[in-house]
């Protein structure tokens, strides 16, 4: 697994309907109306925000690789698979990301585990003084609270946590290499973690590919320990990691006003925001709520008409639909396409 293979998969989903940068925005988890809509349209939620800090240059490099090896081509502005590419997609391993649920926060989860393991590892040896491997204050405070009133110096306690961790790793279904990477990123009194460079030298492959393996490994581990009686302690470590509201804060604010009965124009005035921003919020709301009242905005007949046209043309491209339904705004078309995703599946 590497960036190119993930991109190839994403491109196969958006086949021919999106430009070059759509993938970048998706992987970085850009919270704009367009990206959020794409996530839903094309069923690529698992990849949302898996690489929040992805550099544009790294991204372009991965795209160039795919272009050079003839797996994708650029058709006008749009990117699509070649025949060779489609074949290759079939051979891709299955991905287990859950980007939509974690959005980069899996690293906080790992930070907590790393500090927890380090603390227990030193305390079980009776060493009370060490340099915390995690500098993040929030993580330090979280772990400190977590360990309050626990039998810290009891070696049995450390062992119990270790066993729980091993069990969870086994049960997660992650690959051997992922378990190895996970264990090698842990520090304690008897061993220090390895850097990405060191792991790359040892295991071969680039650091970016290893990081992706690691992120997927955390995305597999988290659901196993969340709310599980089997992993009581790790469950606590995972507290608050999964996104609990899929709406952005700003969209949440808009939703409250909407629920109070304000019109979009009135919300824009109250919030001193551009109309287009409020439109993005409404799309976000529709995306996250199956019962969202789309008929507040467009009539039932029009909805049906647009959906069947989209199926007939075999496209979700707004530009083409706009040509067919000139009276509808882009916003209304997006809303329909978002809300009626079910129908289309």
């Amino acid at each position, binding site marked *: 697994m590497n960036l190119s293979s993930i991109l190839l998969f994403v491109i196969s989903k958006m086949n021919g309907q999106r430009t070059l940068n759509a993938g970048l925005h998706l992987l970085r988890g850009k919270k704009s109306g367009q990206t959020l809509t794409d996530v839903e349209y094309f069923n690529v939620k698992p990849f949302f925000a898996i690489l929040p800090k992805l550099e544009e240059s790294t991204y372009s490099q991965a795209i160039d690789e795919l272009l050079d090896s003839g797996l994708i081509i650029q058709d006008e502005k749009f990117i699509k698979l070649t025949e060779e590419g489609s074949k290759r997609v079939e051979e891709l391993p299955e991905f287990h990301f859950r980007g939509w649920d974690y959005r980069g926060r899996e690293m906080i989860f790992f930070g907590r585990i*790393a500090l927890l393991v380090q603390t227990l590892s030193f305390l079980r040896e009776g060493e009370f003084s060490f340099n915390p491997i995690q500098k993040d204050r929030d993580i330090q405070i979280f772990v400190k609270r977590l360990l309050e009133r626990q039998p810290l110096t009891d070696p049995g306690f450390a062992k119990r946590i270790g066993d729980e*961790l091993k069990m969870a790793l086994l049960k997660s279904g992650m690959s051997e290499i992922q378990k190895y990477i996970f264990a090698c990123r842990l520090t304690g009194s008897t061993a*220090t973690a390895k850097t990405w460079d060191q792991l790359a030298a040892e295991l071969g492959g680039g650091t970016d590919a290893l990081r992706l393996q690691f992120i997927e490994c955390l995305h597999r581990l988290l659901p196993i320990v969340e709310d599980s009686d089997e992993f009581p302690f790790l469950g606590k470590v995972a507290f608050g990691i999964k996104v609990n509201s899929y709406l952005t804060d700003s969209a949440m604010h808009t939703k409250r006003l909407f629920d109070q009965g304000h019109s979009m124009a009135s919300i824009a005035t109250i919030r001193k925001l551009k109309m287009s921003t409020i439109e993005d919020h409404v799309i976000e709301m529709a995306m996250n709520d199956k019962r969202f009242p789309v008929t507040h905005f467009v009539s039932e007949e029009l909805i049906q008409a647009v959906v069947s046209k989209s199926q007939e043309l075999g496209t979700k491209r707004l530009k083409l639909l706009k040509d067919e339904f000139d009276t509808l705004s882009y916003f209304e078309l997006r809303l329909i396409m978002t809300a009626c995703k079910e129908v289309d599946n």
Partner: protein
Amino acid sequence: MDLNRILLERFGYESFRPGQEEVIRHLLDKRDTIAILPTGMGKSLCYQLPGSVLEGSVLIISPLVSLMEDQAMRMRQNGEKRVVALNSFLPYSERQRIMGQLQNYKFIFISPEMLSQEAFSRKLNRIRLSLVVIDEAHCISQWGFDFRPDYLRIGDFLKLKGRPPLLALTATADEKVLNDIQHYFKMEKPIVQRHSLDRPNISYSIVEVHSSQEKTAWIKERVAQTVGPGIIYASSRKRADELAIELQLEGIAVQSYHAGKEQDDRSIIQEQFLMGDLEWICATNAFGMGVHKDDIRQVIHDHLPPTIAAYIQEVGRAGRDGQPAAASLLYMPTDEQTSSFIIQSDMPREEEIRHYHRMIGEGHSPGSASELASLTETGKRVLDYYMEHYSLEEILLKFHRLSTEKNEQLRQMVQLVTGGLCIRQRALSYFGEMGGTKPVECCSICGLETVKWLYEKSIKPSAAEKFSWDERITNLLG
């Protein structure tokens, strides 16, 4: 008061290090004190001991959040539990909790911007303070790029009547900085306690070469033949990475360290170095603060540091255990230009200053304006402060002077390297010290013949045992 007994009973040390006892006595006499002590000489004892015998709490103001947390942590590790570090990055609830019981803490570390928070300063006025300490006090000086405008607020806070004595701590201070410290902190007839910056166990060598390939070759050979642990300072991230790779190819346990690496990897590298898994670090000047490793045997400079003070500070990370250590600086004639370029690129240029000034005037936010004017972060910090206080023309003049000053400092550094005089004595005279006795292993100018220890390299068995994932976890947790 029998200070030696307290030292032994409460801190477990047999004797004071030079300067400590004097500073402590001045403070117990309620005198304002400026203490100039080299890094690693035990500055914290200078307030910990008085703090533990006086009634009330000690307030310690520290410029860098990471530094102060590191210090608070080390105090806790050494058994002093009544320590707290407060800064505006703490979550609100945590801050409230600490504020509610502020008087229960003996040592309160804060960042300067806390003082401008109404609720906090009110609270502070109600508790009893035995001592106020300002760490890295040179940050008050507008002449340095370490300048922290926040430090000027400390002066306002210290106007309080009947305030406790004040201790200003710093590792470097020339006359100008000393005056600023006294003036802005409104210190009353402070006693200046200086300790020699000389580190007799460190020997200095200058190695002249003609190209960076020659530097690389010298470093490779040196590292292969001589003892570690050691730090190699390079001028850029790229060069640090390049050197690390060259050395790795020779089978040396080495990693590069710079701000371009992700935070987790930086912590890991630091820990590996402390634990002895790594023998060498190739670093930019980002490495060193808060790294407490006593047995560093060598510091090598692949480039020319911008000032003598910076050079002495980096070199001073070697040999804290008192055992012999070696500092080597590789120099080629084009280095001066390279360093000058780096220094100047950090300074805002006249057009940039004018541009920024205009945009702020037109109502742009400082953030976007500084981006548009392509200012560096330090440049912006200093400029923002100046703009509150001075006209544009005055600011330009100040920056012009600052720039001249920087060039002058670099020139002095070049002098130190090329002047052909004893390096130790020249560096000390820069800080206004007269040379005392020279150690036998002094510097490459005085002649270094006897450095046998450097070549007594023990072959370490490589502990490259490979564990599986579950063995690793068992290793750590049982």
